[in-house]
């Protein structure tokens, strides 16, 4: 009994020591965040903001940001899945755009292979027309689209991206043929905006932030936002209010490599949870004008699955993926 007792005591001590070591290791991990894009873009900014907030909030001891640009993030994704497999300190920023890029680029690796951690931010899209446009509401635009989809030219971001998908979903929701939409992709927000201000296109669809200044200055008319409910500080109805069943957001999230144990996954989720609640992160969201869309763990994993299915469906119906 004595021996057993001592053994137990020793084991308990060892367990406590190990637990202590583990919690300290997990509480202050040295993380690496990969931005699958060149420095300066949205994903890079997200990664670098996380770096700031993680360190400032004490959720991580140190954070190193690396950039792996290419092909809508799928080059970075491939590296995460293949080279970082099982690394419990590696994270990657991604978002809606990657879901589409995986399909249009026929990427051999997909988001099914990663370990989902959390959704961080989301931005709803705005549908706008030039100030002198005859279209006064989303319904007017819908009617024009149904009458002749070719005559309604859409300006937005890259082909197969969130803007394009939103335009296709809009056509589908109002009963027009989504394969016949006249969507003109522009590189970068500035060019699409210029085409709208110059009256070269009928309508524009992109993140609300891209258009905000022009809407406030009265150069563009905001027809609708793609949110499920009205947005605070935005004076525009949702599409749903105008009888068009569509809501879509351009979200950004963070994922981890495949091959993690349940504990390792839990630890990463806890770390990011801690970051998301920190004042440092909230301050960054406010500074950058990003909307908090925090969702972590299993609910995020389920959300990611749904979005993948929805995007695959849309891209097929628009004819961007066969």
């Amino acid at each position, binding site marked *: 009994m004595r021996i057993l007792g001592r053994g137990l005591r020793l084991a308990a001590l060892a367990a406590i020591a190990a637990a202590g070591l583990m919690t300290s290791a997990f509480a202050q991990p040295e993380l690496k965040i990969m931005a699958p894009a060149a420095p300066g873009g949205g994903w890079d900014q997200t990664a670098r903001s996380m770096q700031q907030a993680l360190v400032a909030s004490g959720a991580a001891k140190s954070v190193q940001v690396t950039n792996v640009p290419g092909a809508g993030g799928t080059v970075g994704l491939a590296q995460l899945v293949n080279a970082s497999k099982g690394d419990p300190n590696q994270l990657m920023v991604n978002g809606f755009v990657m879901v589409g890029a995986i399909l249009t680029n026929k990427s051999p690796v997909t988001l099914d292979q990663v370990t989902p951690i959390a959704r961080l931010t989301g931005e709803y899209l705005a549908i706008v027309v030039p100030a002198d446009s005859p279209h006064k509401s989303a319904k007017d635009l819908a009617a024009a689209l149904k009458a002749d989809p*070719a005559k309604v030219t859409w300006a937005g971001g890259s082909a197969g991206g969130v803007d394009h998908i939103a335009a296709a979903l809009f056509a589908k929701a109002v009963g027009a043929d989504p394969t016949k939409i006249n969507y003109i992709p522009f590189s970068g927000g500035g060019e699409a*905006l*210029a085409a709208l201000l110059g009256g070269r296109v009928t309508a524009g669809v992109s993140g609300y932030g891209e258009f905000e200044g022009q809407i406030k200055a009265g150069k563009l008319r905001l027809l609708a936002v793609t949110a499920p409910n009205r947005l605070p500080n935005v004076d525009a109805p949702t599409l749903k209010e105008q009888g068009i069943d569509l809501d879509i957001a351009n979200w950004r999230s963070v994922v981890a490599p495949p091959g993690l144990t349940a504990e390792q996954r839990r630890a990463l989720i806890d770390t990011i949870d801690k970051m998301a609640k920190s004042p440092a992160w909230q301050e960054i969201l406010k500074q950058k004008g990003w909307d908090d869309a925090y969702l972590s763990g299993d609910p995020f994993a389920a959300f990611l699955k749904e979005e993948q299915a929805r995007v695959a469906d849309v891209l097929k119906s628009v004819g961007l993926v066969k």
Partner: protein
Amino acid sequence: MDALASLGQGFLVALEPTKLLYALIGVFLGTAVGVLPGIGPAMTVALLLPVTFKLDPTGSLIMFAGIYYGGMYGGSTTAILINTPGESASMITALEGNRMARAGRGGPALATAAIGSFVAGCIATIALALFSPSLVELAVKFGPEDYFALMVLAFVTVSATFGDSPLRGLTSLFLGLVLGLIGIDTLTGQARLSFGVPELLDGVEVTTLAVGLFAVGEAMFVASRHRFGGDDIIPVRGSIWMTREDWRRSWKPWLRGTALGFPIGALPAGGAEIPTFLSYTIEKRLTKHPEEFGKGAIEGVAGPEAANNASAAGTLMPLLTLGLPTSATAAILLAGFQQYGLNPGPLLFAERPDLVWGLIASLFVANVMLVVLNLPLVGLWVRLLAIPQPWLYAGILVFAAMGTIAANPSPVELVMLLAFGALGFLMRRYDYPIAPVIVGLILGPLAEAQLRRALSISLGDPLILIQSPIAAGLLLLALIALIAPFALRGLSRFRGSED
């Protein structure tokens, strides 16, 4: 005159001692990172953004301006000294600038670039202050068909970089066009010429091509000739400063370059490359020393450098007045504004005039800093060329590889650098001009995208290409540029027969 008064206010802000210090630090950091080939001003600003986090909005924007100008000038320095253009817009600078540097005229080349950038920057900034609201209205009127016409004009003028054989020049151009096809087609999102390699989907990076063809190819070529006592580099011959003659030959190109750079830079899809191409062409046509072009003509450095800098000020116009980020750098500046909760756009001038005019004034200040910092360094820079050739070229290659690795650490990118280096060597060896390859890579995809956008808007009706007065005018200009040399030659022959 209201604008000038506000500008005066702006200067009061920008000339505070602490602000001057920020500008100096910015210029220094910008030059340090900007000299890396492959890391252009945009990425320099992005990388250094965190440095500015801790300052107040005005201070941080002033440092931004310094970093931006420093980054641009850093690219030109390497283009001139070691034939390694740091960004696509300084490729043209490398053409004549490096020839000058090898002939011992690196000092005047660097000086005309710095002073030309300064002159262009100042004039363009004044134009920015005075004409922003009215010019920008015109700029947004430019539609895809107008851009297409502008590209056509640029294509026509490319022949200035062809050398003496049209067959070889066109071959180079078409190689560039093929490289431009690689990657995702913007309009349909499909991959072309990518062979399932994901790294190729984003297309060929202009700087990788430029560094490969210019720096690596050149190193290989010189090495292959080394044993036969190939061309030696002369660090300094004659004055290291610009002579009276240099000034005389530089000032007009500076002004013409500015006149091209500012308006084209102000166009939402104008960019910095096209004005530098156009400027080079014009200088080559107008010069009294055509025999020097291709061997180191100072006009060929002065004009394009001024155009490059003026276009940078031009991009600020749509950014500040409309909130349109029309270049990568402008997009990052926009992010810089937003980090202080400011949204550039029509309201910014009204809401935060101190900031806008402070920024415009700090552009002036940064420009002055650049000249102050760099002119004394010119002597030091050209001494670099006195390093023994093996080490000089080894250093250049380390530098070129480092730029590529820092911008995109993928093995595919480095393999491309190697392949382009080999291509550059072969082209030099067999006398094919290098510049048209890069021009083809830049202009090809742009021209295609704009043409297809125009035709998509017109539902396939080609008449849209000539219905717009701007497009029609530009196309007419292109036609004249195409025919004029033949016509002039015919005319001179005609005159000759009269004598």
